[in-house]
């Protein structure tokens, strides 16, 4: 998702609004023919910048051209009361609604800015620690949290356990990989990516879980460096010593 380059305009309505304001046009009497041409030209420019994002604008361009055509028709459509329908009416209504929310977003932005100049307690959670309350990393749970958690679980399951590779998966058990990691760490450890280079996805996942497990038991040290996508696995000081009894077999 890279909606960066089209940024001067939040969308097709925003672009349309821009023309209207720039030319100080009465929004209730938009010179559709002229605006449609100009709009189309702007969309062509946008297409060069970002074709994907331009798609949103093309729909409105088409709408403008359609309204332009209808305005050229000799006999206008009539409404229920026999009054001629202004082909622009619906668009104008949408535009005005959009203006309201655009304005509101500006006001909200101001409030947000003002609020961001105030800072709340930074280490409030330290009180929790100091008083021996729960230190578990916790989340306030909403349905979104629930769905995100599910997404995470599925991602792990999908990459770790594709059904057709059942045999391969079995060969990478966490306890086996723990031993493998400890072996590598005794040799000096290194960047995780390096350690698992050219290995299968299943191997990488299970090894990663093994590293997490070992780090939790403080049998290895995980060090984050400059590369946010990687970390180093190193011996704990002084010498890697298996922490739990369950690890003695691996040592």
């Amino acid at each position: 998702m890279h909606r960066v380059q089209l940024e001067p305009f939040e969308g097709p309505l925003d672009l349309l609004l821009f023309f209207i304001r720039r030319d100080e046009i009465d929004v209730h009497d938009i010179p559709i023919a002229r605006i449609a041409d100009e709009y189309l030209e702007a969309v062509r420019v946008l297409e060069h910048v970002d074709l994907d994002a331009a798609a949103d604008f093309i729909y409105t361009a088409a709408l403008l051209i359609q309204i332009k055509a209808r305005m050229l028709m000799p006999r206008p459509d009539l409404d229920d009361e026999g009054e001629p329908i202004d082909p622009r009416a619906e668009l104008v209504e949408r535009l005005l609604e959009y203006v309201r929310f655009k304005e509101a977003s500006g006001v909200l932005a101001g409030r947000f800015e003002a609020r961001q100049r105030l800072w709340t307690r930074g280490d409030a959670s330290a009180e929790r620690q100091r008083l021996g309350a729960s230190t578990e990393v916790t989340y306030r749970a909403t349905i979104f949290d629930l769905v995100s958690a599910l997404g995470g679980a599925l991602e792990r399951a999908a990459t770790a356990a594709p059904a057709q590779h059942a045999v391969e998966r079995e060969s990478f058990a966490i306890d086996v990989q723990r031993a493998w990691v400890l072996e590598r760490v005794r040799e000096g450890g290194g960047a995780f990516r390096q350690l698992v280079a050219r290995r299968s996805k299943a191997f990488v996942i299970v090894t990663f879980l093994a590293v997490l497990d070992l780090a939790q038991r403080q049998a290895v040290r995980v060090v984050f460096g400059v590369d946010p996508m990687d970390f180093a696995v190193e011996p704990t000081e002084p010498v890697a010593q298996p922490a739990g009894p369950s690890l003695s077999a691996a040592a």
Partner: protein
Amino acid sequence: MSLTADTFDQAVEALVFASDVALRAEDVARVYGEVTGAEVTSQDVAEAVGRINAAYRDGGRAFRIEQWAGGLRLATVEGLAPFVRALFEKEDERRLSRSLLETLAVIAYKQPVTKPEVDHVRGVGSDYALRQLLERDFVTIAGRGEGVGRPLLYATTDRFLDQFGLDDLGGLPSPREIEEILADPAFNKERARLLSEMTAPSTEATAPPTTDSADVDA
């Protein structure tokens, strides 16, 4: 510590101080009651907050107890922002892109609202913005609508209120009249510049680089 009126104020202060979310006056009263056995009301808490804030003001303290998202929260006073900002440097969290703000505005004023409704008002798909707002906990799923397929409804969160310094949704500013907005000459000069640069780079004089902030004050 003996239970004097002072102790009540201190307890209120300690609770608001220790909490990392806005704390409702009822909760303060309840916790105080549980610990001491004394009966106190939200009103008592509100009065204590008044006394504490007065003491902060008189003593030149760096913070006040604010009332946000229906709860009490300690926050620094405005003038000290430059110092705190310099300490943290990371500004990213404290910025919202225009598309996030626009999407948030539609949800805030129209809630509960479905995604198609938001898309319709904005004229563009809001998936990305919506996802960001959910992730930043400004917006949450609030149930399902009545229509075909019972679409999910979105609404703002307490964190939204907190981060926008609002006590409740009634505090949302009412937008100006349409005509007034349209006539405002301050509207987006910056974007006029950007468009002319895009379409005819050579003709227009180059304005100094500006940020989104022009839009923000509009």
